[in-house]
Protein backbone atom coordinates (compact mmCIF):
# COMPACT_ATOMS: atom_id res chain seq x y z
CA UNK A 1 0.00 0.00 0.00
CA UNK A 2 2.71 2.46 0.97
CA UNK A 3 4.86 1.39 -1.94
CA UNK A 4 1.99 2.15 -4.35
CA UNK A 5 1.59 5.70 -2.97
CA UNK A 6 5.32 6.39 -3.27
CA UNK A 7 5.37 5.00 -6.80
CA UNK A 8 2.46 7.25 -7.83
CA UNK A 9 4.20 10.31 -6.37
CA UNK A 10 7.41 9.48 -8.29
CA UNK A 11 5.40 8.99 -11.49
CA UNK A 12 3.70 12.40 -11.15
CA UNK A 13 6.93 14.26 -10.38
CA UNK A 14 8.74 12.52 -13.23
CA UNK A 15 5.98 13.28 -15.72
CA UNK A 16 5.92 16.96 -14.67
CA UNK A 17 9.71 17.28 -15.08
CA UNK A 18 9.79 15.50 -18.44
CA UNK A 19 6.90 17.56 -19.83
CA UNK A 20 8.57 20.82 -18.88
CA UNK A 21 11.90 19.65 -20.37
CA UNK A 22 10.27 18.80 -23.72
CA UNK A 23 8.47 22.14 -23.97
CA UNK A 24 11.48 24.36 -23.22
CA UNK A 25 12.99 26.86 -25.65
CA UNK A 26 14.95 25.34 -28.59
CA UNK A 27 18.38 24.02 -27.69
CA UNK A 28 21.18 26.24 -29.01
CA UNK A 29 19.48 29.64 -29.11
CA UNK A 30 19.82 31.45 -25.75
CA UNK A 31 17.48 34.39 -25.18
CA UNK A 32 18.97 37.74 -24.02
CA UNK A 33 22.72 37.06 -24.02
CA UNK A 34 23.58 40.72 -23.39
CA UNK A 35 25.72 40.19 -20.27
CA UNK A 36 27.72 37.33 -21.78
CA UNK A 37 28.38 39.29 -24.99
CA UNK A 38 29.84 42.08 -22.86
CA UNK A 39 32.04 39.55 -21.00
CA UNK A 40 33.29 37.96 -24.25
CA UNK A 41 34.15 41.24 -25.94
CA UNK A 42 35.72 43.05 -22.96
CA UNK A 43 37.54 40.29 -21.03
CA UNK A 44 40.84 40.69 -22.83
CA UNK A 45 40.96 44.47 -22.45
CA UNK A 46 39.98 44.72 -18.78
CA UNK A 47 41.17 41.50 -17.15
CA UNK A 48 44.07 40.82 -19.57
CA UNK A 49 43.44 37.06 -19.69
CA UNK A 50 42.78 34.73 -22.61
CA UNK A 51 40.43 32.51 -20.63
CA UNK A 52 37.03 34.21 -20.27
CA UNK A 53 35.68 31.64 -17.76
CA UNK A 54 38.64 32.17 -15.36
CA UNK A 55 38.28 35.94 -15.59
CA UNK A 56 34.58 35.62 -14.70
CA UNK A 57 35.30 33.28 -11.74
CA UNK A 58 38.12 35.37 -10.23
CA UNK A 59 37.61 38.94 -11.46
CA UNK A 60 34.04 39.82 -12.41
CA UNK A 61 32.36 37.47 -9.89
CA UNK A 62 35.09 37.01 -7.31
CA UNK A 63 32.71 37.25 -4.36
CA UNK A 64 31.04 33.95 -5.28
CA UNK A 65 34.46 32.28 -5.32
CA UNK A 66 35.08 33.60 -1.81
CA UNK A 67 31.84 31.96 -0.65
CA UNK A 68 32.77 28.69 -2.32
CA UNK A 69 36.23 28.69 -0.70
CA UNK A 70 34.53 29.19 2.67
CA UNK A 71 32.19 26.22 2.08
CA UNK A 72 35.13 23.96 1.18
CA UNK A 73 37.09 25.11 4.23
CA UNK A 74 34.14 24.45 6.58
CA UNK A 75 33.55 20.98 5.10
CA UNK A 76 37.20 19.96 5.62
CA UNK A 77 37.05 21.38 9.16
CA UNK A 78 33.91 19.35 9.91
CA UNK A 79 35.38 16.06 8.66
CA UNK A 80 38.62 16.49 10.62
CA UNK A 81 36.73 17.47 13.78
CA UNK A 82 34.44 14.41 13.52
CA UNK A 83 37.33 11.96 13.41
CA UNK A 84 39.33 13.67 16.14
CA UNK A 85 38.31 11.68 19.18
CA UNK A 86 39.35 8.39 17.62
CA UNK A 87 42.98 9.28 17.07
CA UNK A 88 45.06 8.54 20.14
CA UNK A 89 48.48 9.19 18.63
CA UNK A 90 49.38 11.74 15.99
CA UNK A 91 49.94 10.66 12.39
Amino acid at each position, binding site marked *: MKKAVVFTVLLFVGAFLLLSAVQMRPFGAPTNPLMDDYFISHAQAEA*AANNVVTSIVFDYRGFDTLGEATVLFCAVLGVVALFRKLREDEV
Partner: protein
Amino acid sequence: MNGEMSVIVRTVTRLVYGLIIAFGFYVIMHGHLTPGGGFQGGAVVATAFALLLVAFGAAGIKGKLNAHLLQSLEEVGALAFLALGFLGIGTTFFYNLLANHGPIFGRPDVIGSNPGFLNTAGTLVWMNWAVGLKVMTGLASVVVVMLIGARKGEPE
Protein backbone atom coordinates in the same frame (compact mmCIF):
# COMPACT_ATOMS: atom_id res chain seq x y z
CA MET B 1 49.03 -12.54 2.67
CA ASN B 2 49.60 -9.38 4.64
CA GLY B 3 47.04 -7.32 2.72
CA GLU B 4 49.50 -5.23 0.70
CA MET B 5 49.28 -4.35 -2.95
CA SER B 6 51.45 -6.32 -5.42
CA VAL B 7 54.94 -5.39 -6.62
CA ILE B 8 53.70 -4.05 -9.96
CA VAL B 9 51.35 -1.54 -8.34
CA ARG B 10 53.99 -0.25 -5.96
CA THR B 11 56.68 0.11 -8.63
CA VAL B 12 54.44 1.92 -11.09
CA THR B 13 53.23 4.26 -8.32
CA ARG B 14 56.80 5.20 -7.43
CA LEU B 15 57.48 6.07 -11.08
CA VAL B 16 54.26 7.91 -11.87
CA TYR B 17 53.25 10.06 -8.89
CA GLY B 18 55.88 12.72 -9.62
CA LEU B 19 54.52 13.15 -13.14
CA ILE B 20 50.97 13.56 -11.83
CA ILE B 21 52.08 16.28 -9.40
CA ALA B 22 53.97 18.08 -12.18
CA PHE B 23 50.93 17.96 -14.47
CA GLY B 24 48.73 19.34 -11.68
CA PHE B 25 51.12 22.28 -11.18
CA TYR B 26 51.04 22.93 -14.94
CA VAL B 27 47.23 23.06 -14.93
CA ILE B 28 47.25 25.51 -11.98
CA MET B 29 49.94 27.76 -13.46
CA HIS B 30 48.37 28.18 -16.93
CA GLY B 31 44.87 28.86 -15.64
CA HIS B 32 44.50 32.13 -17.55
CA LEU B 33 45.53 30.68 -20.94
CA THR B 34 44.05 27.18 -21.21
CA PRO B 35 41.06 25.49 -19.57
CA GLY B 36 41.86 24.81 -15.93
CA GLY B 37 42.73 26.99 -12.99
CA GLY B 38 42.94 26.64 -9.24
CA PHE B 39 40.16 24.13 -8.50
CA GLN B 40 40.89 21.70 -11.32
CA GLY B 41 44.67 21.62 -10.75
CA GLY B 42 44.22 21.17 -7.01
CA ALA B 43 41.97 18.17 -7.60
CA VAL B 44 44.61 16.59 -9.90
CA VAL B 45 47.35 16.92 -7.24
CA ALA B 46 45.01 15.50 -4.55
CA THR B 47 44.51 12.49 -6.85
CA ALA B 48 48.27 11.85 -6.65
CA PHE B 49 48.05 11.81 -2.84
CA ALA B 50 45.12 9.38 -2.97
CA LEU B 51 47.12 7.10 -5.30
CA LEU B 52 50.00 7.03 -2.82
CA LEU B 53 47.62 6.14 0.01
CA VAL B 54 45.94 3.34 -1.92
CA ALA B 55 49.19 1.75 -3.15
CA PHE B 56 51.16 1.80 0.10
CA GLY B 57 48.44 1.54 2.74
CA ALA B 58 48.24 3.34 6.05
CA ALA B 59 51.38 1.71 7.43
CA GLY B 60 53.62 2.97 4.65
CA ILE B 61 52.57 6.60 5.00
CA LYS B 62 52.78 6.81 8.80
CA GLY B 63 55.90 8.87 9.14
CA LYS B 64 55.66 10.97 6.01
CA LEU B 65 52.29 12.76 5.77
CA ASN B 66 51.50 14.93 8.76
CA ALA B 67 47.85 15.93 9.16
CA HIS B 68 48.75 19.08 11.14
CA LEU B 69 51.11 20.33 8.43
CA LEU B 70 48.45 19.87 5.75
CA GLN B 71 45.86 21.78 7.80
CA SER B 72 48.27 24.69 8.40
CA LEU B 73 48.98 24.94 4.67
CA GLU B 74 45.25 25.02 3.96
CA GLU B 75 44.76 27.92 6.36
CA VAL B 76 47.65 29.79 4.70
CA GLY B 77 45.97 29.34 1.31
CA ALA B 78 42.59 30.60 2.52
CA LEU B 79 44.09 33.69 4.21
CA ALA B 80 46.20 34.48 1.12
CA PHE B 81 43.08 34.39 -1.08
CA LEU B 82 41.29 36.81 1.26
CA ALA B 83 44.29 39.17 1.40
CA LEU B 84 44.49 39.25 -2.42
CA GLY B 85 40.86 40.32 -2.52
CA PHE B 86 41.64 43.30 -0.30
CA LEU B 87 44.56 44.42 -2.48
CA GLY B 88 42.57 46.74 -4.73
CA ILE B 89 40.21 48.11 -2.09
CA GLY B 90 40.77 51.67 -3.39
CA THR B 91 38.38 51.04 -6.31
CA THR B 92 36.30 48.06 -5.21
CA PHE B 93 36.56 44.67 -3.53
CA PHE B 94 38.33 42.03 -5.75
CA TYR B 95 39.61 44.63 -8.21
CA ASN B 96 42.31 43.42 -10.62
CA LEU B 97 44.97 45.93 -9.63
CA LEU B 98 47.98 44.47 -11.46
CA ALA B 99 46.14 43.87 -14.74
CA ASN B 100 47.71 46.18 -17.31
CA HIS B 101 50.44 48.02 -15.45
CA GLY B 102 51.84 45.89 -12.63
CA PRO B 103 55.41 44.83 -11.82
CA ILE B 104 54.92 41.07 -12.37
CA PHE B 105 52.22 39.59 -14.68
CA GLY B 106 51.34 43.06 -15.83
CA ARG B 107 51.71 42.99 -19.60
CA PRO B 108 48.59 44.01 -21.57
CA ASP B 109 47.07 41.26 -23.67
CA VAL B 110 46.83 41.12 -27.49
CA ILE B 111 43.21 41.47 -28.61
CA GLY B 112 41.88 38.57 -30.66
CA SER B 113 43.18 35.06 -31.24
CA ASN B 114 46.82 34.71 -30.14
CA PRO B 115 49.24 32.10 -28.80
CA GLY B 116 49.12 32.61 -25.05
CA PHE B 117 51.65 34.76 -23.19
CA LEU B 118 52.39 33.79 -19.59
CA ASN B 119 53.07 37.34 -18.44
CA THR B 120 49.57 38.69 -18.76
CA ALA B 121 46.75 38.50 -16.23
CA GLY B 122 47.37 40.52 -13.04
CA THR B 123 46.13 39.15 -9.72
CA LEU B 124 44.51 36.15 -11.45
CA VAL B 125 47.72 34.09 -11.27
CA TRP B 126 48.26 34.70 -7.54
CA MET B 127 44.63 33.82 -6.85
CA ASN B 128 45.03 30.61 -8.87
CA TRP B 129 47.98 29.59 -6.72
CA ALA B 130 46.20 30.39 -3.44
CA VAL B 131 43.08 28.42 -4.34
CA GLY B 132 45.19 25.56 -5.77
CA LEU B 133 47.15 25.23 -2.53
CA LYS B 134 43.94 25.32 -0.49
CA VAL B 135 42.13 22.64 -2.52
CA MET B 136 45.16 20.34 -2.78
CA THR B 137 45.96 20.28 0.94
CA GLY B 138 42.30 20.23 1.98
CA LEU B 139 41.39 17.17 -0.07
CA ALA B 140 44.62 15.40 0.96
CA SER B 141 43.92 15.97 4.65
CA VAL B 142 40.32 14.66 4.25
CA VAL B 143 41.60 11.45 2.62
CA VAL B 144 44.34 10.92 5.23
CA VAL B 145 42.02 11.53 8.20
CA MET B 146 39.31 9.24 6.85
CA LEU B 147 41.76 6.38 6.23
CA ILE B 148 43.41 6.60 9.65
CA GLY B 149 40.10 7.09 11.47
CA ALA B 150 38.34 4.23 9.72
CA ARG B 151 41.23 1.85 10.25
CA LYS B 152 41.63 2.49 13.95
CA GLY B 153 38.15 1.95 15.37
CA GLU B 154 36.91 -1.26 13.79
CA PRO B 155 33.51 -2.40 15.16
CA GLU B 156 33.84 -5.19 17.72
